[in-house]
């Protein structure tokens, strides 16, 4: 009797799952959309072939960051509607093993290409895709030089577009400098994942510190230039500490993402130090500092353009924002699609491309608003289909010029 009940329950479970399979998005929905029709006429010359659906897997190491969500929105709510492609997103990828599994999943699901936002083990990802004949592209990141040398000639390695470490370094440098130029001397810093030895954050931090050294005519951990600073930070086990840098001072520093009482306490302590004039964050500064910031204190952050961050800039809580724009991952998509459809974009030596791409920088609310308006648009994003189509099977030169012109105004010109 009870047994019967229970097996009914099993049935119910089955039904649940099946009904889900029903509501899951059907790959063929997107076929024959309006643009598809228009494009198909002269597919071979310009614009990709929309006749058959292309499945592209997307590796994401982080599913909750504003940046990741903005990117996802651009792909799913603009690109996927414009082109006959289906994006398949991975779950949150904590480690290299998770990345490998995710790629396996994509391959099993017959993805033709993979665009990666996950960097736990890029070489492994590339090898895996090469071995399985799946195109692979790096979005918002780059390979190290030796990695590039190793993989540039791989057939299925499309290439990389994104801020290289130097760009990250410069982002930090410029942010600090812009405040230093305004004559501020006393800084508090949030180091993000620096204590976890995360390069991106280490380089941004280094940039800020070098800027301080130059302005203050002093040294930090005995270093004052790019190379020296990176070394010094690793030397210190990536545990930074407050220090006087000539006539500039790093008054307070917090690193890590503990989210416990002590962590909040430390952040509050830095923000509330009467000496601190400017708060700098290598990332997620809005989470770290915005809550504790005092009146008149300045806050600079490297993140992305969201409703919230813009609101913060309007309210003067956030004063400087270097942010990736969500459409910045348009070109890599087109390069990938192009490769999948047999028009790979290779440089003069026939190798995969590696193109640097920086941030949009806003130091006032108006700019930020303008950026966000474009960035969040689902109809007229920074890179529209019309613009991207010009990249289909484009020459390396055209492609590089297009990508390199990433600043807001340059893109505006491209659009015309």
């Amino acid at each position, binding site marked *: 009797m009870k047994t019967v009940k229970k097996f009914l329950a099993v049935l119910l479970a089955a039904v649940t799952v099946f009904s889900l399979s029903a509501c899951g998005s059907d790959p063929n929905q997107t076929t024959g959309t309006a643009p598809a029709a228009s494009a198909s006429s002269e597919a071979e010359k310009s614009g990709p072939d929309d006749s058959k659906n292309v499945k592209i897997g997307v590796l994401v190491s982080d*599913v*909750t960051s*504003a940046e990741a*969500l903005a990117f996802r929105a651009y792909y799913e709510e603009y690109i996927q509607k414009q082109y006959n492609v289906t994006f398949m997103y991975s*779950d*949150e990828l904590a480690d290299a093993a998770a990345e490998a599994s995710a790629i396996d999943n994509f391959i099993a699901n017959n993805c033709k290409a993979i665009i990666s936002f996950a960097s736990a083990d890029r070489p492994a990802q590339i090898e895996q895709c090469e071995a399985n004949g799946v195109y692979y592209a790096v979005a918002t990141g780059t390979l190290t030089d030796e990695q590039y040398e190793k993989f540039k000639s791989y057939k299925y390695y499309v290439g990389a577009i994104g801020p290289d470490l130097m760009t990250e370094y410069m982002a930090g440098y410029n942010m600090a400098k812009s405040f230093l130029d305004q004559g501020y001397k006393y800084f508090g810093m949030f180091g993000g994942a620096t*204590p976890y030895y995360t390069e991106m954050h280490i380089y941004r931090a280094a940039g800020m510190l070098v800027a301080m050294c130059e302005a203050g005519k002093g040294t930090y951990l005995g270093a004052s230039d790019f190379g020296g600073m990176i070394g010094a930070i690793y030397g210190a086990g990536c*545990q930074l*500490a407050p220090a006087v840098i000539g006539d500039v001072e790093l008054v307070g*520093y*917090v*690193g*890590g993402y*503990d*989210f*416990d*009482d*002590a*962590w*909040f*306490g*430390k*952040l*509050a*302590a830095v923000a*509330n130090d009467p000496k601190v004039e400017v708060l700098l964050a290598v990332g997620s500064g*809005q*989470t*770290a500092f*915005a*809550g*504790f910031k005092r009146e008149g204190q300045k806050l600079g952050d490297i993140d992305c353009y*969201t409703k*919230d961050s813009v*609101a*913060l800039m309007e*309210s003067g*809580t956030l004063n400087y924002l270097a942010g990736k724009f969500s459409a910045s991952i348009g070109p890599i998509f087109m390069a990938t699609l192009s490769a999948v459809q047999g028009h790979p974009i290779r440089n003069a030596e026939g190798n995969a491309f590696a193109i640097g791409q920086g941030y949009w920088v806003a130091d006032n609310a108006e700019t930020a608003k303008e950026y966000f308006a474009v960035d969040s648009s689902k109809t007229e994003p920074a890179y529209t289909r019309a613009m991207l189509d010009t990249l289909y099977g484009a020459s390396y030169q055209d492609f590089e010029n297009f990508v390199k012109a990433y600043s807001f105004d340059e893109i505006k010109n491209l659009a015309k």
Partner: protein
Amino acid sequence: MKIGKRIIGTLALPLLTLLAVWLISGARGVALFETQLNLLTFIRAAANVMLVTFALAINLNSGRFDFSVGSVALLSSVISSKLALALGWGPLAMLLVSICAGALLGLISGAVYVTVKLPPIIVSLAVALFFEGLAFTITGGHGVSFANKASLLGFSTIPNFLIIIVLTLLFMIIIFDHTRFGYEYKALLSGQKVAVNTGIREIPNALLCYTIAGALMGAQGFISATTNGTIQMSLNFGSISPMFMAFLPMFIGGFIGRFSNDKLGYFLGAVCSALISLLYVRLNVSSSVQQITSALLLVGFLIYLNNEGKLKALFVRKERGV
């Protein structure tokens, strides 16, 4: 027990902690409570830890382990903050809604438990997953940010936290020591079978326990949300971490409870860990060092707790000169 012994037993640990923390910080030439802010940090931590400790202890004492407390805090703070932002509420309204939401979620997880009649630890795993997923879905993964809602951030003040602490403590003592529910809770706690056979209705009692725990976590969620103005989403059990900070204070509370009132004990336990957190802040200790010390403290105290008898015997022998 003599009143003197009671007082000593009750205050020994907090005072010891205070002394230790004070000495260590002193040795490093740092004043523990230099600024108003240090006090705020301390009180906030105390309130925060106390809420979680109560929430966990209510059910853990009756053998119901609950992985879902963190997710309840997460989801209830998401709900309340979403509403507060949409309707332009002040902190008080948000706090109340957060508590109610928490209570409701707690009730739900309790209801699941009493319906499926599975071991609570299993149920709580599922509930945690579910609530995390729901919070994620509600916010579309974005989490919630009200960093520029000064009104909400403004809640984080010493008097406010003091009020929360006092009210919670009063509430807990009244509910658990002076009401029918409390008496029946105690009976079920140490004599489940007998109590049930005698006609005490366990299910309503359990439901109320979960509801109260939920309400407390609602308040805790509100505090951590308004402390830094954003709510981070978490998936795959990312939400269980707040639970861990409750263990040390819970054991300390249990210990103190033997001399006076266990609720008071939990509060004092929270005070102890808040003092330790403050020390971490003042000395700007790196998180690895933090994790290690906290873990060692927990183990150390447990060892003491579980070997008190032996230790005493040891001393007695010493006195005997054996």
